[in-house]
């Protein structure tokens, strides 16, 4: 079960206590030590709370009030809760309090553990790691609850709808008249005191006469216009009314109460709460229900089951799946596919597996149906739980007060059967014994002969062993010989092959020699050729030597010329060197160098370029004048300045700070000399002199002094300027000197270079002279050679060119080389031929030897084989003996002997016991017959205790007494799931460890009060309510689960056994899905679903009929005055005709012997509209009273789950209103239910024009159109006279 990993053994766990917790604990014990030593250990359920502010894990420990005996006694069975945090490797109790007895202790969110608390500060024992891990992994209970709460909120709508009806206070009103109906099942009262909307709300309320203690029944109808309220009476009051003991008219007021509804809503709400609190028997339930992909635990491999019912493949799959799967299994079962059989089989399988099953459904009828189908078997103990008067006949025998009686009756029947068959059994026993005796004798004989056989076999085995080893030896020998022979044969072949190859080779060589022989003429010719060749070579040599002599002479002449050139050059260079001293200009130098063809070195080039640059810079310098001029000027300036300074000092003139302005005016040497002259002139000017000579101060004197001071400043400034200019000139002077030096360097370098150049040329000259000498020597040699050759060649034919001779030579040489090659080759071939001939001789000798050896071996082998065959022929009979297995046979025979003896012993015991058992059974029968209340009560107690299949409605499964008696079930099966709302389904689901849902989402959905959700939605004009309803409509729990569950958790039953095939065809479109289609399981529909009726309207082979009502006013629907329901008189008339016809037809069939006299055809007349049903019912009960039909009427909705031989379906709707509304009939699920109730014959009475043409919804038109087509194809479309229409 999910995370519930129970820790079984006791664990030690440190516990510290806060003052607060101690205070609480001391209310129950003297101190904490006393408290926790009350028991050795405590069973607790640990719930995780969110971490506290310090981030410690927090827990609530719930002390089990069931298993902690001492504690429970002390606390008067209440539940203790200790709040703890995890701290210091143990718990720290921060609080302790007591909750009520009913406080749930064990939930899916809590960890059960048995703890021994070590109380005190310094226990020093760490919490066991298992426990620590478990509590750490616990989900925080509150968070899980929040999650479930959030998800389950989507179902709130259902409850709100129910609550909106239920949340009404009791209504008390006076009534004036009261009247029972025909069979005292209903009471009608006339009320005038009810207000407008109260008429609507009281539907479904329970009713009670003021002054009576109990409810008399529940309101099933409230007709405001007639002021009549119809109450369905409870069984009790019905009986009282029959006995005339209860007169409603004697009461004045009636009280309507919705207590039942309210308590139902309360139970549903509690279901929500329980799921939130983790109280589901299956911890996984919350996940399965709410996750988009339900997470179910995957089960191990499927079990092999033995079935008790006859099941088809789909049913077997469903049962096997339901038995093997975990958590949840869903079965989709279209009409007539044997859902109930499957449920019954699953119950039986569960009983066999020792599991307790709950069968639940929304309606009592479905529960009773399912239980009623269960096989009577002594191991199946069925209990029907619920209000006795709401349980149907099939379920009655299983209610608690009847189970004992039912048990007694069944046991009695079984005992009776047994007793009756006892004498037969005795005879049987006797027979068995006798036949056993006979078999025993035979087996013993067999055994003897088998012993003999075993002995023979043993002897044969020994013999066999000897022979085998002998044969083995021979075989080995033969094997060796064979191998040898094979080898020899192989050799022979190889030798032969070799000989062939050699012969071939020899003949080839001979052939070659024959062809390639050289004639003596050729040899002669070739010898001459050799001489010619020699001569030609000499001639060529001579010729070539002469050419070389010419070449050499030429070369000597050229060298002489060059030598002369070199001498000249040396002479000119010497001239240049002499000139060099006189050259002062660089450009000239360059010019000369070029002229004399002297290539300056890189270094020289660079230096010359540098020099050029320096020369350029000297040229560009604008400063004029010579350095010496400036020097002189400066000296004069200094003298002037000194003089003036002295003058000024003498006169005590302190010059003002004079601004020195650069005076550009005097920049050249002459200008500045001019300036000094001017100053001198001023000074020696007599006026100036006189003014200065005055001792006293005068303005003029001052003025002059000032002027002098200014002049001084000017001179000073200019002195600086001159100094600068002088510096510059000095620098330039330096550069010029450098340049001159550089030029001198270059010259020196050139001289060095030139000398080197000269020596190089001289070297070259001497080399040439040597060369010339060499040539001369060669020439001499060549002339000698030429002379020699001329002697050899004798005459030299000068006309033949050298190249021609050369060509001839090459050709002749080639011919001669070929000749030599060929000669060599012939020599080789001849040698090869000799070798081969030698080899042939050797080979022939080897072959001869080999053949001789082969002969010997073959003879040996034949001998050995003969011997082996002889031995083997001896072995065959032995093998035959050995092949037999007398030991095993003996073993088997012995076993069967033992079995037989055992059986006989048992039979004898049985036989001996027969009389005793018989008498015991008789006694038992007597006791059972005499069983009285007391006995049955004892049986009842035992039965209830051991009941293993329990049936109840969804809502009743949450009743408190039931919860206490059966808190959980191993398996919960819920039938007709689609008829229940999710909150209703939740109640039984909470109780199941495994849940099996059975239903059909293509049939009608749950009713909310009297209406389906769709109808509520249609009627609602509250936007909010509409939204709520739409939300609920979207989620059909069953459909969603069926869609989303993994394959092994669901199945669809696909074979139906109820309907004639052609009736089935009308609903197959609703189930078409992928490759799934509804199949008919009836092997021959026509014979097993023969309705046996032949009448005016119906023929034997008709199974599907539609009597078409024209879409004309005469046939239109009507509405009841003051009500909403509708009826259709024309259709009623047609139904009347049909029923009379069927009654007559059945009577005829009886008379013709097709139907048994006492049988009745079951006919259901159903309609989409309650008013029509009511009228049909009256028609049947009051007017027709058919003698041969068993008629039942009801709305389509009420008929879900039922089946009849014949069904007449009245559509009612027929009008020409604009909307073309067909009301309830629009829902395909309703049509599906309506069409699938009939076994043999389905008759539709309705307007095809209305339903296939006038109705505005395309989907409705299509749906009914398809139905019409289906009926037409069976020739079942009729007019009102019953004549086939097309």
């Amino acid at each position, binding site marked *: 079960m999910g995370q519930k990993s129970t820790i079984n053994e006791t664990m030690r766990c440190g516990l510290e206590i806060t003052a607060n917790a101690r205070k609480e604990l001391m209310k129950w014990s003297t101190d904490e030590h006393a408290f926790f030593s009350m028991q050795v250990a405590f069973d607790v359920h640990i719930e995780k709370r969110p971490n506290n502010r310090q981030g410690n894990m927090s827990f609530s420990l719930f002390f089990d009030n069931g298993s902690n005996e001492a504690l429970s006694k002390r606390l008067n069975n209440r539940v203790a809760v200790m709040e703890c945090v995890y701290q210091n490797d143990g718990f720290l109790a921060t609080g302790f309090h007591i909750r009520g007895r009913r406080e749930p202790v064990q939930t899916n969110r809590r960890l059960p553990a048995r703890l021994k608390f070590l109380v005190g500060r310094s226990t020093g024992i760490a919490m066991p790691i298992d426990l620590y891990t478990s509590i750490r992994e616990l989900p925080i209970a509150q968070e899980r609850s929040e999650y479930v709460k959030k998800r389950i909120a989507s179902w709130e709508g259902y409850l709100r709808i129910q609550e909106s009806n239920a949340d009404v206070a009791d209504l008390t009103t006076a009534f004036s008249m009261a009247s029972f109906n*025909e069979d005292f099942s209903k009471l009608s009262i*006339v009320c005038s005191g009810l207000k407008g909307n109260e008429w609507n709300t009281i539907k479904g309320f329970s009713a009670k006469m003021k002054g009576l203690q109990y409810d008399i029944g529940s309101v099933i109808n409230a007709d405001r216009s007639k002021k009549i309220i119809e109450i369905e009476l409870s069984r009790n009051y019905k009986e009282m009314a029959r006995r*005339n003991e209860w007169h409603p008219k004697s009461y004045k007021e009636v009280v309507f109460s919705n207590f039942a509804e309210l308590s139902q809503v309360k139970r549903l709400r509690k279901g929500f709460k329980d799921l939130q609190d983790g109280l589901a028997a299956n911890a996984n339930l919350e996940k399965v229900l709410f996750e988009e992909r339900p997470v179910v635990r995957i089960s191990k491999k499927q079990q092999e089951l033995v079935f008790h019912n006859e099941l088809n493949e789909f049913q077997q799959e469903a049962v096997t799946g339901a038995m093997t799967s975990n958590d949840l299994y869903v079965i989709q079962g279209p009409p007539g596919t044997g859902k109930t059989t499957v449920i019954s089989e699953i119950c039986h399988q569960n009983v066999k597996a020792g599991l307790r099953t709950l069968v639940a459904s929304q309606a009592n009828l479905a529960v009773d149906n399912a239980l009623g189908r269960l096989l009577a078997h*002594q191991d199946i103990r069925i209990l029907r739980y619920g209000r006795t008067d709401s349980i149907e006949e099939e379920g009655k025998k299983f209610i608690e007060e009847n189970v004992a009686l039912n048990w007694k009756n069944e046991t009695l029947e079984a005992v009776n059967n047994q007793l009756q068959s006892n004498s037969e059994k005795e005879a049987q026993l006797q027979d068995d014994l006798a036949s056993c005796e006979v078999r025993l004798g035979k087996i013993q004989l067999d055994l003897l002969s088998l012993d003999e056989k075993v002995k023979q076999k043993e002897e044969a085995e020994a013999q066999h062993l000897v022979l085998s080893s002998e044969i083995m030896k021979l075989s080995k020998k033969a094997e060796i010989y064979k191998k040898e022979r094979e080898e020899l044969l192989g050799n022979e072949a190889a030798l032969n092959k070799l000989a062939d190859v050699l012969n071939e080779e020899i003949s080839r060589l001979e052939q070659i020699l024959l062809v390639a022989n050289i004639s003596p003429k050729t040899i002669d010719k070739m010898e001459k050729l050799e001489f010619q060749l020699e001569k030609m070579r000499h001639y060529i040599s001579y010729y070539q030597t002469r050419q070389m002599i010419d070449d050499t002479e030429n070369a000597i002449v050229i060298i002489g010329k060059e030598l002369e050139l070199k001498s000249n050059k040396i002479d000119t260079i010497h001239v240049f060197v002499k000139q060099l001293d006189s050259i002062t200009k660089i450009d000239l130098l360059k010019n000369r160098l070029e002229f004399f063809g002297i290539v300056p070195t890189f270094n020289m080039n660079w230096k010359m370029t540098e020099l050029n640059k320096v020369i350029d810079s000297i040229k560009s310098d604008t400063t004029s004048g010579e350095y010496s001029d400036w020097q002189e000027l400066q000296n004069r300036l200094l003298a002037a300045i000194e003089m003036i300074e002295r003058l000024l000092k003498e006169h005590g003139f302190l010059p003002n700070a004079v601004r020195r302005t650069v005076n550009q005016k005097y920049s050249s040497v002459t200008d500045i000399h001019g300036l000094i002259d001017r100053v001198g002139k001023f000074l020696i000017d007599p006026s100036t002199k006189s003014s200065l000579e005055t001792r006293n101060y005068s303005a003029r004197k001052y003025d002059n002094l000032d002027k002098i001071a200014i002049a001084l400043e000017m001179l000073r400034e200019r002195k600086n300027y001159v100094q600068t200019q002088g510096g510059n000139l000095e620098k330039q002077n330096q550069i010029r000197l450098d340049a001159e030096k550089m030029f001198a360097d270059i010259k020196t370098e050139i001289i060095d270079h030139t000398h080197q150049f000269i020596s190089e040329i001289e070297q070259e000259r001497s080399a040439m002279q040597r060369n010339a000498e060499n040539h001369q020597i060669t020439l001499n040699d060549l002339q000698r050679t030429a002379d020699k050759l001329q002697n050899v060649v004798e005459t030299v034919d000068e006309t033949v060119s050298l190249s021609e001779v050369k060509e001839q030579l090459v050709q002749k040489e080639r011919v001669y080389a070929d000749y030599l090659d060929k000669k060599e080759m012939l020599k080789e071939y001849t040698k090869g031929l000799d070798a081969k001939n030698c080899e042939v001789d050797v080979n022939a000798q080897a072959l001869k030897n080999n053949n001789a050896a082969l002969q010997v071996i073959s003879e040996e082998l034949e001998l050995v084989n003969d011997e082996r065959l002889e031995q083997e022929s001896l072995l065959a009979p032995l093998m035959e003996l050995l092949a037999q297995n007398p030991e095993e046979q003996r073993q088997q025979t012995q076993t069967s002997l033992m079995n037989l003896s055992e059986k006989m012993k048992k039979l004898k015991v049985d036989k001996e016991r027969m009389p005793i058992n018989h008498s015991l059974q008789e006694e038992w029968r007597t006791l059972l017959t*005499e069983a*009285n209340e007391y006995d049955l009560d004892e049986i009842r107690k*035992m039965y209830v205790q051991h009941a293993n299949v329990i049936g109840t409605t969804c809502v009743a499964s949450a009743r408190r007494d039931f919860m206490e008696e059966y808190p959980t079930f191993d398996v919960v099966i819920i039938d007709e799931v689609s008829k229940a709302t999710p909150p209703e389904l939740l109640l039984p689901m909470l109780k199941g460890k495994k849940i099996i849902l059975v239903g059909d989402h293509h049939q009608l959905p749950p009713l909310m009060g009297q209406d389906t959700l769709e109808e509520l939605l249609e009627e609602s004009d509250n936007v909010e309510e509409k939204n709520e309803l739409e939300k609920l409509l979207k989620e059909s729990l069953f459909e969603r689960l069926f869609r989303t569950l993994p394959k092994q958790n669901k199945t669809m039953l696909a074979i139906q056994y109820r309907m004639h095939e052609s009736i089935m065809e009308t609903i197959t479109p609703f189930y078409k899905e992928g490759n799934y289609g509804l199949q008919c399981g009836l092997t021959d529909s026509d014979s097993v679903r023969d309705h046996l009726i032949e009448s005016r309207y119906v023929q034997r082979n008709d199974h599907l009929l539609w009597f078409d009502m024209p879409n004309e006013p005469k046939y239109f629907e009507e509405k009841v005055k003051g009500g909403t329901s509708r009826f259709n008189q024309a259709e009623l008339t047609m139904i009347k005709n049909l029923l009379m016809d069927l009654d007559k037809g059945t009577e005829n069939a009886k008379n013709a012997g097709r139907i048994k006299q006492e049988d009745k055809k079951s006919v259901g007349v159903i309609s989409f509209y309650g008013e029509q049903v009511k009228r049909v019912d009256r028609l049947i009960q009051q007017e027709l009273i058919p003698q041969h039909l068993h008629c039942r009427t009801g709305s389509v909705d009420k008929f879900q789950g039922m089946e009849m031989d014949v069904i007449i379906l009245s559509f009612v709707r027929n009008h020409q209103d604009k909307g073309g509304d067909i009301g309830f009939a629009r829902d395909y699920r309703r049509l599906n239910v309506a069409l699938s109730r009939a076994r043999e014959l389905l008759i539709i009475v309705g307007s095809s024009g209305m339903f296939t043409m006038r109705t505005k919804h395309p989907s409705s038109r299509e749906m009914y159109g398809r139905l019409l087509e289906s009926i037409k194809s069976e020739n079942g479309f009729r007019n009102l006279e019953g004549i086939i229409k097309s």
Partner: protein
Amino acid sequence: MNDLKERLTKELQQDFDVKIMGSQSWSLPVNSIEIVYQTVMRTKVDILMKMMLIAFGKADIATAEELSDILLVEQLFINDLIDKMTRSGVIEKREGFYSLTDVGVRQFKTGIFVHEPENGSRQALYSPCHQTFLNGEINSIPYEEKGIYRFKNEFDDWSVATLEDTVLLDALKIMGVESGEGNVQIVVSEIISASDIEVDLVPCIEFHMYNEAEDLLYARVWNTLSEHWDEKLEAQLNEKERKKWREIYL
């Protein structure tokens, strides 16, 4: 008789929407059957436990399964009781078989018959038309009706011999023949005989009712013996005569 009819008429007329279209009275034949039976007194011991004690005393039974096969009772029940009896020291396993201890033997002896059987007889009223016994006292009927129930003939093919023992036993039980107080109880141990003694006539009053609002016709029959509106007779009349009434009354 007329008083009764008048009272009933009045009461029926109080129902709204309903008219009494017609009424008549007639007699229903009821047979007095004398049932002779035997009762025994015995202590209250649960029958299954008693049966097991008997079995352990008489036969060699080694396992619960064996006993389950003989008594055709679920093994679980047998196991339960074996445990219970072993715990209270009534039985023990000896040489592989269950057997009674001394305590068991004593308890067993006192647990069966306390007294010898006694014979008794009672008269019960059987109505062939109902095919059941009826409750009531013939003596208390102060009226008489000449006409006999018109469909009586349809139920003629019966005789007292066809009545099964269980039906007779049920009738006796309903009359309170069996009783149990304290640790002792009286039970019918055997039906010795049943004989048809006489036929009494029980007057019945028949009304034909019509509910105008819903166009329904139906019968109400007051049975003076059982003193109630007799459902069975009403159903018989409805089925057989409704069509006729429709023709007559409407």
